[in-house]
C-alpha cells in the first residue's frame, strides 16, 4: 500500500509551476516538504486514503501546471461577507493575503491577526514553536505540496486570559474569471491559556476556470482555552479544494467545530483533532448539501491521547443529482486515555437514484475503560412523513424542505455565536427551500 509509482514528469511540471515565487519563511521545512512531495506525488486511485475521491486524477486531467497566481479583478468583497455577522475580516484573493481588503477591528493588545509571511519576521519565536509541528509532511501529498509551496497565509495569536468576543472571518476568494487559479495557503492560530477565539473561514470562487485550493491549518488550543471554528465552503462549480486541518487541544480546553459544504466540484476535508490533555471536550459537526456532480469527502480523526476527555462527532449529508458524499471517521483511543467518551454519528439522505454516499467509521481503541459508540445511516426521505405534512395542506416542495431542514438542523449545535447561527440557519434553509 502507498507504494504507487510517482509520475515524475507530472511532478516536475508541478514543482516548476511554483518557481519564480518569493518563498520567504520556513526555508528548511519547505525543503523537507519538497523532498516528501517528490516521493509521494499526487495520490492515485490506488491510494487507500483517496479511494473514493480521485483528486489526483482530476487535477492531472483538468489542471494546467503553468501559472500559480493570477491577478484578480475583484474590487469589492461585499457580496462574499456574512450578513449580520460582525467580525474582523481577513481576505486572501487567489491565495495571497490582501492588506487592502482586510479589515481588522480587534484590539492589538489582545489578539494578533496578520499575514503569516509577515509573522515569520515579527513573531519569529512563537511561529517557530508551532509552525508545521502538527502537520507532518511525510504522509499526505497535499500537506507536502502545501508545506513546500505555500504562498501566503494568516497568523492569529490570542494572548493569555483573553476572551475575544468578535469572530475573525477569513475570507478566501478565488477569481477564476480570466484564468485558472492555484492557491496554496496556510493558517496558524494559537489560543493561549484561559482564552477564547471564534474563527470563521469562508470559501468563495468566481469564474469558469478551474480553481485548485490547497490549504493547511494548524490551530493550538492551550490549557483551559476555548475555540469555536466554523467553515463554510461555498465555491462555484469548477473548484477543487483540499483542506488539512489539525486542532491540537491541551488540558481542559473546549473545541466546537462546524463544517458546511455546499458547492464545488471536489472537496476534501481532512480534519484532525488531537486531544492531548485531560478533561477536554470537543464537538465537531458537519453538514454537506450536495447536488449536480459535486463530490465532498470529510475525513475526520479524533485522537484521544489523554484520559477523561469527551468527543462528540455528528456529520450529516443530503445528496441530490449525481452528487457523491464520502465520510470517514477515525477514533483513536490511546492506551493511557482511560475514561474516554467518544461518540460518532454520520447520517445521510439520498434524494436521487444516482446520488451516492460512502461512509466508514474506523475505531481503534487501545484503552479498556472507555465509552465509545458510532453509527451511520443512509436512506431516502421518509415518504410517510412527507404524506403527513402534505395531508395538512403543505405542498410537496415545502414539505420536503421542512423535513430536510428538520433532519439537518441539529448539526448547528456547536455554533454558539448567535448572529453566525442565524446566518447559517438562513443559508441552509434558503438552500433547502430553493428545491436544492
Amino acid at each position: 500500500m502507498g507504494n504507487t509509482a510517482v509520475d515524475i514528469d507530472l511532478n516536475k511540471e508541478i514543482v516548476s509551476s511554483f518557481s519564480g515565487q518569493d518563498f520567504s519563511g520556513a526555508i528548511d521545512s519547505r525543503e523537507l516538504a519538497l523532498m516528501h512531495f517528490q516521493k509521494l506525488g499526487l495520490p492515485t486511485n490506488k491510494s487507500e486514503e483517496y479511494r473514493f475521491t480521485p483528486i489526483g486524477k482530476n487535477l492531472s486531467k483538468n489542471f494546467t501546471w503553468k501559472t500559480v497566481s493570477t491577478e484578480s479583478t475583484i474590487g469589492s468583497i461585499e457580496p462574499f461577507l456574512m450578513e449580520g455577522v460582525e467580525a474582523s475580516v481577513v481576505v486572501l484573493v487567489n491565495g495571497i493575503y490582501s492588506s487592502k481588503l482586510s479589515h481588522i477591528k480587534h484590539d492589538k493588545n489582545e489578539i494578533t491577526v496578520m499575514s503569516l509571511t509577515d509573522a515569520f519576521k515579527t513573531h519569529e519565536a512563537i511561529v517557530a514553536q508551532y509552525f508545521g509541528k502538527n502537520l507532518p509532511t511525510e504522509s499526505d501529498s497535499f500537506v507536502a505540496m502545501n508545506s513546500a509551496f505555500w504562498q501566503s497565509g494568516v497568523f492569529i495569536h490570542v494572548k493569555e486570559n483573553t476572551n475575544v468576543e468578535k469572530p475573525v472571518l477569513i475570507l478566501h476568494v478565488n477569481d477564476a474569471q480570466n484564468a485558472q487559479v492555484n492557491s496554496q495557503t496556510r493558517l496558524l492560530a494559537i489560543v493561549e491559556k484561559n482564552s477564547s477565539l471564534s474563527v470563521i473561514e469562508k470559501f468563495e470562487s468566481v469564474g469558469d476556470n478551474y480553481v485548485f485550493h490547497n490549504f493547511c491549518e494548524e490551530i493550538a488550543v492551550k490549557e483551559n482555552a476555548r475555540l469555536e471554528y466554523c467553515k463554510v465552503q461555498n465555491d462555484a462549480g469548477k473548484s477543487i479544494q483540499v483542506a488539512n486541518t489539525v486542532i491540537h487541544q491541551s488540558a481542559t480546553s473546549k473545541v466546537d467545530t462546524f463544517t458546511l459544504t455546499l458547492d464545488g466540484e471536489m472537496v476534501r476535508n481532512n480534519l484532525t483533532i488531537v486531544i492531548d490533555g485531560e478533561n477536554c471536550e470537543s464537538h465537531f459537526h458537519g453538514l454537506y448539501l450536495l447536488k449536480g456532480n459535486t463530490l465532498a469527502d470529510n475525513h475526520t480523526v479524533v485522537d484521544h491521547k489523554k484520559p477523561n476527555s469527551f468527543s462528540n462527532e455528528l456529520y450529516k449529508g443530503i445528496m441530490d443529482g449525481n452528487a457523491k458524499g464520502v465520510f470517514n471517521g477515525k477514533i483513536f483511543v490511546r492506551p493511557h486515555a482511560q475514561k474516554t467518551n467518544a461518540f460518532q454519528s454520520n447520517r445521510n439522505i439520498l434524494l436521487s437514484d444516482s446520488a451516492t454516499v460512502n461512509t466508514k467509521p474506523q475505531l481503534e481503541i487501545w484503552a479498556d475503560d472507555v465509552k465509545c459508540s458510532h453509527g451511520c445511516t443512509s436512506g431516502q426521505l421518509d415518504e410517510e412523513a412527507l404524506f403527513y405534512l402534505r395531508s395538512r395542506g403543505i405542498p410537496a416542495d415545502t414539505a420536503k424542505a421542512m423535513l430536510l431542514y428538520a433532519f439537518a438542523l441539529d448539526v448547528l449545535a456547536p455554533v454558539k455565536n448567535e448572529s453566525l447561527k442565524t446566518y447559517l440557519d438562513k443559508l441552509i434553509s434558503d438552500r433547502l427551500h430553493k428545491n436544492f
Partner: protein
Amino acid sequence: MLQIKNLQASIEGKQILNGIDLQVNAGEVHAIMGPNGSGKSTLASVLAGREEYEVTGGEVEFLGKNLLELEPDQRAGEGIFLAFQYPVEIPGVSTVNFMKTAVNKIRAYRGQNALDAVAFLQLMKEKMKLVEIDQALLSRSLNEGFSGGEKKRNEIFQMAMLEPTLSILDETDSGLDIDALRIVANGVNKLRNKNNATIVVTHYQRLLDYIVPDFVHVLYKGRIVKSGGKELAKELEAKGYDWIKSQLADSVIS
C-alpha cells in the same frame, strides 16, 4: 358533499376496494365498520390521496370537484382532513411551526391572506382549549415521544385548527384508554356543525358511544355489504362480524 361511485383500488397489485358506493351530505356522521383487512383504512387513505394506492376504477366527487385528480395538499385545501391511525413522529418540526405553515398554505390555496403571528396564536389558544391539549406539548417536536393518547389529541387539535369540511377519522380509538377516548370524542363533537361532515372508520363500536353516527356501513372484502342507522353498530357489537359473514354466505346460497 361527497359522492363515491364504484370506487376500486389496489396496493402493490393487490385489489383491496372492489366497488364502494357512498354518499355523505353536510351535517352527517358516517361510521365505516368492518373486520380487519376489509379495506376500511384503504378507503380513508384513498380519499386523502395516499400515493401507494392505485385507484383502478370508479369516481369520487367532493363539492363538485373530481377528488382523485387532486394532490394530497390540494385535497386539504379543498377541506378534507385525515386523522391518522398512526400519526407520524417528525423530529425537528414543532407542532406550532407545522400548524402555522399548514394554516397559511391552506389559506393561500383558498386565496386568503396569511395569518400574522398574533392572529395565529389567538386561533391556537382557542383550539387548544377545545381539545384540552397543553401548550408545552405543541412546542415539542411533532408527535415525537408522545403517548398514544397525546398523538390522537394532537390529530384532533390539527383538525380544529384547519376546520375541514370533511373529516375522516381512521381508527382514532385504537390505542386509547377510556379517558383519552372521551376527550378526543368530545373534541370531535364540538367541531361538528351543519356545514361539515365526518367519516369515522372503526373496528369497534366503543367509539360510537361517544361520536354518535347517523349512518353505519359495514365494509367486507372491499365492498359495503350492509348499511343502517346507529343501531346497526350495536347489533354488530353483540353478534360479531361472523354474523355478517354468515348472512352473506346465506344470501349467496339462496
